[in-house]
């Protein structure tokens, strides 16, 4: 395969940053099909249109996900990318693997694919870019037999679940994100590997409201750690921050001289609910007003820690902008304990998941994310389906999404009462 002239792409090598164009040129020495990626992309830049066709029937036997068929619409000019399928590998929880594993994966991909990878995709998968249909089954065989790895989700499947580092490395983890992520991945193998839904469905797990996997913005089902009781305060450490003994934010912003730490300006006044104050040199928090935003804990990690009654909040329905603009997930279940039963299952969370699925599979339209279904049908109905009593936190602001509606059985005489009779007593 010949090299193509790529004057437009070459511009992208001129900046001070690493360039994918340079990477591709280097890879093309080993894998000449990479010249055709560059050639086709150059053509796309000229034509201002993609030359990838969307989708296909490719996959590995028994699976309905994990491989995304991609074909060039100009295969005669760029035969190296006539087929250029994407493979998604389910990443280990928190993306913990050693360099030997990464080497094995890269070697496998040099053998069966273009050698190009994207680590990691937004579902967290290790994404392997570019192979041909005949290579798929042998790749899958080696992957599952030699590397003990599996494909991730794509299409209308449950997508590869992902989680933050959680308790493995982070003191703020309010539940074991890796355990929940791994256990649910195993529990829902069928849903990950075969389509089950009107559209994609994503699980993401963050150990605390810092939400390092951006669960609230990117997942249909976001489990975010929180606590019910009071923030633990070490008053001596608070004094240590004030006196400058400890660096605020664990020294994270120390590159510049911000002046002396000012607890009022940097913590109290930035608390979004204004629920913190000083009494002399003692820090006070009205925990009933605290919205668990994590700001004060992030600034003074040594002094403030999450409470001890830990669990998670479940938010439902984030999505990207395809219809109606992007939206965050809506707080649905204010608090659940994240614990396993004697069968090793997170039964309480599984129950919430399946209530959502049963409803969405029934009423969701084709290609409608659950967040769009909730938006279309209404949060009050969704909460009823979930058997959740509405709380003030379920509304965005007064009157923008009211949730109090009378039901027929709550009204004397129902909807069928005699209005004429009623109006005799109650003028309009």
């Amino acid at each position, binding site marked *: 395969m010949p090299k193509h002239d790529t004057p437009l792409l070459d511009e992208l090598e001129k900046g001070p940053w690493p360039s994918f164009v340079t990477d591709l040129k280097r890879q093309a020495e080993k894998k000449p099909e990479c010249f055709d990626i560059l050639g086709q992309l150059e053509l796309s830049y000229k034509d201002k249109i993609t030359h990838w066709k969307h989708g296909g029937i490719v996959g590995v036997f028994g699976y309905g996900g994990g491989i995304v068929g991609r074909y060039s619409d100009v295969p005669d000019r760029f035969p190296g990318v006539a087929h250029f399928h994407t493979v998604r590998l389910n990443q280990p929880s928190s993306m913990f693997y050693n360099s030997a594993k990464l080497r094995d994966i890269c070697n496998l991909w040099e053998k069966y694919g273009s050698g190009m990878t994207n680590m990691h995709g937004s579902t967290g998968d290790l994404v392997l870019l570019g192979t041909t249909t005949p290579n798929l089954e042998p790749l899958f065989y080696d992957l599952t037999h030699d590397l003990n790895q599996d494909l991730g989700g794509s299409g209308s499947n449950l997508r590869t679940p992902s989680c933050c580092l959680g308790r493995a490395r982070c003191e703020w983890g309010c539940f074991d994100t890796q355990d929940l992520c791994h256990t649910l991945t195993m529990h829902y193998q069928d849903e990950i590997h075969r*389509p089950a839904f009107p559209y994609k469905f994503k699980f993401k797990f963050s150990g605390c409201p810092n939400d390092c996997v951006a669960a609230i913005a990117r997942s249909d089902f976001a489990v975010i750690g929180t606590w019910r009781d009071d923030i633990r305060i070490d008053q001596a450490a608070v004094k240590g921050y004030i006196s400058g003994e400890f660096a605020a934010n664990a020294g994270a912003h120390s590159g510049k001289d911000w002046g002396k730490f000012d607890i009022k300006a940097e913590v109290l006044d930035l608390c979004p609910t204004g629920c913190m104050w000083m009494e002399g040199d003692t820090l006070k928090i009205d925990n009933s007003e605290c919205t668990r935003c994590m700001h004060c804990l992030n600034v003074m990690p040594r002094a403030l820690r999450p409470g001890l009654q830990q669990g998670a909040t479940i938010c439902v329905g984030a999505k990207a902008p395809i219809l109606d603009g992007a939206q965050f997930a809506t707080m649905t279940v204010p608090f659940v304990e994240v614990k396993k039963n004697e069968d090793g299952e997170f039964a309480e969370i599984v129950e919430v998941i399946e209530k959502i699925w049963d409803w969405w599979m029934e009423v969701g339209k084709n290609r409608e994310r659950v967040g769009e279904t909730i938006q279309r049908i209404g949060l009050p109905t969704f909460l009823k389906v979930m058997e959740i009593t509405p709380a003030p936190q379920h509304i965005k602001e007064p009157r923008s999404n009211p949730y109090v509606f009378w039901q027929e059985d709550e009204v004397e005489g129902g909807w069928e009462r005699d209005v004429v009779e009623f109006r005799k007593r109650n003028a309009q």
Partner: protein
Amino acid sequence: MALSREDLKAKILEKALTGPKAQLYVKDFYACDPESGPRDIKNAANDLVKEGKMTFWSSGSTTMYAAQGRAKDEENR
């Protein structure tokens, strides 16, 4: 009463083979048996794929079903 798995599969396959649309969403099969739940329908359709009578077609973000040979096949056209 809901159809048996085999009867349900027969109805789904019939729709996939003879319906006007070559590629169908799983919801399009719900009408094959209003008594069967969405999960039964999806399991029956997925069984037909395992048996080689239907195929998946996926854009990468959505998945559809088609009777063997009716899906848009980029390789063999």
